[in-house]
């Protein structure tokens, strides 16, 4: 669905003054699970809030605040979020950090924790803690949902490496699906460092992904390895703490989730961001893995002094997409889409990243002059969809998070195929030796369950490989 030329001409920079929001605002309720989910979530709300409140951008600010925050009688902003963990330290930390920032906070009672964690065991999270605390968690989510005029969708945030985010997160996703059958559920996942953060990370990842694939509408992934490289090479941060990593994730997610005008939104900020994202990118149940790239990214001290052209930004972003480089450094400019005729790909596979669908979100100055035609090139897509169906663009004239111009690409492509294959390969190697299986068995996950999950993911891997043919 193309952003129609008609809408472009009637639209102008005076939007801020003249725009009216029709109808009830739709809000997003976020469920943060485990240490990672709670840490990343806190950074996300921080970015959303500071971006929303920056400068004199009333309509944008109102739309963003309504979408992500509840305003108390005293005028304070409370995140529309529920914090879940099986042990208290991370939640306490996140709540304190929010309070100390002074601009927003979490609801007083919007959190749930226990005393003892899930021990990095998916089975413990999914089979024991999840069911045990289902009622308490559902109640908290329900309260948050009821505070919304209308629900745009639910977003969960968690890692796949540990026990709570992965196991409890998967179980709660199942519950949310049951309770809110007509709402969209977006899962945001953080994948661990490939060199090993948690020994059981590959088992936990396999079990999570296999189960979520049946439950989720869209799975947005950030990999620690990629984000760490962005911090090191683009942002020049030294040493890099998890806070830095989480801020990059928050910036990229914020670039997607903040208000924007979409092809369906009729000249105003879209009321249905999650629904539109899902329908733009996840039209096929076999393909739900979404990666995110943002350009530009640079040290915050450089931001005020930098100026870019949309042409340059989009040229780099497109090459990042097709060469599967996840940041604007070290891009391989030799990678080219194969010619439109004779789409025979070599058996060895090229380094070319084929997309199923792409969503480009452009924010900032002169956004309507940005030419996105290069993303509608049929050769970068699998042939099953027309480029018009495969590509969507959202725009917002409001600069995001201090960047005069920024572009975020959410992509349903082969970008995550390599990392996914690595996870499955390592998990399979470990499974072949039956190492640690007794730990999962003790909590109710058998070898059978593992085999089912492996089968499901081999299917996903195979599907993504086929995008090339």
């Amino acid at each position: 669905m193309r952003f129609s030329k008609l809408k472009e001409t009637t639209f102008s920079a005076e939007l801020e003054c003249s725009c009216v929001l029709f109808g009830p605002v739709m809000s997003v309720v976020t469920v943060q699970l485990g240490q990672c989910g709670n840490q990343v979530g806190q950074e996300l709300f921080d970015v959303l809030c500071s971006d929303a409140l920056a400068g004199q951008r009333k309509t944008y600010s109102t739309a963003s605040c309504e979408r992500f925050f509840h305003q108390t009688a005293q005028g304070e902003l409370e995140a529309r979020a529920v914090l879940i963990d099986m042990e208290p330290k991370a939640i306490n930390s996140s709540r304190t950090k929010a309070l100390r920032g002074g601009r927003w906070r979490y609801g007083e009672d919007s959190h749930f924790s226990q005393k003892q964690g899930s021990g990095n065991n998916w089975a413990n999270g999914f089979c024991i803690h999840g069911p045990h605390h289902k009622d308490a968690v559902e109640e908290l989510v329900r309260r948050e949902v009821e505070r919304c005029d209308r629900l745009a969708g639910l977003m969960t945030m968690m890692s796949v490496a540990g026990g709570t985010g992965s196991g409890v997160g998967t179980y709660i996703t199942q519950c949310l699906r049951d309770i809110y059958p007509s709402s969209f559920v977006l899962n945001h996942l953080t994948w661990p460092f490939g060199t090993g953060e948690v020994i059981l990370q590959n088992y936990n990842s396999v079990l999570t992904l296999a189960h979520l694939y049946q439950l989720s509408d869209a799975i947005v992934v950030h990999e620690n390895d990629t984000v760490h490289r962005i911090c090191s090479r683009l942002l020049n941060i030294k040493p890099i703490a998890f806070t830095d990593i989480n801020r990059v994730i928050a910036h990229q997610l914020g670039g997607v989730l903040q208000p924007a005008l979409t092809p369906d939104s009729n000249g105003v900020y879209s009321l249905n961001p999650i629904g539109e994202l899902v329908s733009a990118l996840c039209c096929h149940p076999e393909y739900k893995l979404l990666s995110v790239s943002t350009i530009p990214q640079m040290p915050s001290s450089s931001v005020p002094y930098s100026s870019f052209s949309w042409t340059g930004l989009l040229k780099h972003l497109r090459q990042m997409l097709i060469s599967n480089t996840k940041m604007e450094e070290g891009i391989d400019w030799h990678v080219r889409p194969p010619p439109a005729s004779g789409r025979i790909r070599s058996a060895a596979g090229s380094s070319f990243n084929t997309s199923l669908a792409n969503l480009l979100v452009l924010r900032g100055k002169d956004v309507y002059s940005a030419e996105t035609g290069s993303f509608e090139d049929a050769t970068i897509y699998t042939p099953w969809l027309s480029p018009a169906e495969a590509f969507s663009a959202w725009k917002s004239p409001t600069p995001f998070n201090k960047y005069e111009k920024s572009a975020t690409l959410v992509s349903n492509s082969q970008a995550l195929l390599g990392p996914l294959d690595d996870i499955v390969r390592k998990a399979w190697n470990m499974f072949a030796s039956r190492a640690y299986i007794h730990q999962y068995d003790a909590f109710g996950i058998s070898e059978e369950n593992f085999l089912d999950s492996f089968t499901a993911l081999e299917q996903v891997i195979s599907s993504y490989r086929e995008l090339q043919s």
Partner: protein
Amino acid sequence: MTQSVVVQVGQCGNQVGCRFWDLALREYASVNKRGLYDEATSSFFRNVDTRKGATCSVGGQIQHLKARAVLVDMEEGVIGQILQGPLRELFDSAQLLTDVSGSGNNWATGHMTYGSVYRELIVDKLRKAAELCDCLQCFFLIHSLGGGTGSGLGTRVLGLLEEEFPGVSRIVTSMYPSAEDDVITSPYNSVLAMRELTEHADCVLPVENQSLIDIVQKIQAVAHGSKPELMVRRDGTVSSGQGGVHEVEKPFDAMNNIVANLLLNMTSSARFEGSLNVDLNEIAMNLVPFPRLHYLVPSLTPLYTLADVNAVPRRLDQMFSDAFSKDNQLIRADPKQSMYLACALMVRGNVHVSDLRRNIERLRPSLPFVSWNQEGWKTGLCSVPPVGHSHSLLALANNTCVKLNFMELKERFIKLYRKKAHLHHFLHVEGMDVGCFTEAASSLNSLIEEYDCLDATKARLTRDPPRLRIAA
């Protein structure tokens, strides 16, 4: 947050335990400046209202701290000294169990005789300690293997812990006798105890006396050395009790402080905040791939902090390298000649994820990991450094090198057993028979074999097992 109960058995167990409580108090005092009885403090201590004599819940001021501990010894000497020392207020008489005659360096006396006589009383004291916890997660058992009480009664207690509290983890710190140990029967006691450890512990932290001696000597060489730029902070060594309650250091204190620090560092990420927490239940979960292979080699670094603040700070990367040096290990065996099944890196203090990743990538090529766990790292970042250091690292390695220690033990056992030396002292004890010995030896043998099998895979070039194929 959860609580843990420390169970110290025997002379050595109680000496180490005593140092643990001293250093734990020192650590909490340095972190908790306002004297609040918080969740972290409550993991090892309960707070008693002195007027009402009742236990307080978390949140108020610290009034009277009591250790979550049970102290057992069949002689009165060590516990007697504790009760006369500055730590006496930490323990109620209900937490203590003593006798007078000792176990005569006889595992059977400890395990069978005293084990039967005191079974009910021990269970009672454990139960009371457990009931005072909101959510008990773990028992830490501290004992030595070479003697009679710690080894025999200690392992009997271990069995009771499993029986009576099946849902609570059992982490055992075991002092292994060195070859030069002067207790003649220590091989018997150790092998008999090992069978219990293999069957009933969730994980075991083996510690060798000789390693502790070596570390203490190394620190002393630097601390008393002539180079002024290497002046060591008095409270900044892994063997120091400086700043603790005890004024005068006793002979084995330095060695025992090292073990105390091991326990504090292992639990720090569960007690204190950090960007990557490690709860106690995550340790065994990640480090024990097969139930019986739960012997984790501890390494502590740095051993000391330089006093001169202008001195070039010991490079962070050096700390990571040292963690894999046999000089920092608490048992003597070269891990690089054997194979890593899994390894945990628990970092404290001013260290960030990039430091961790950089060092893992740097050191990984020189470390042999088993083929199915090539990325076998469990990592933790705790913001609170230990007293006297700006950062520290505890490595817990599930490495097949432990089998070398076990093989040495087995050799010493066979030497004695073949000649039936001192056997009658054991067989005379009611409940003991030759079967106990053969079963214990057999258990040790099969444990060694399990490690052998894994080591054998090192030489073999393993290809990845073929992946599942799905219908097209």
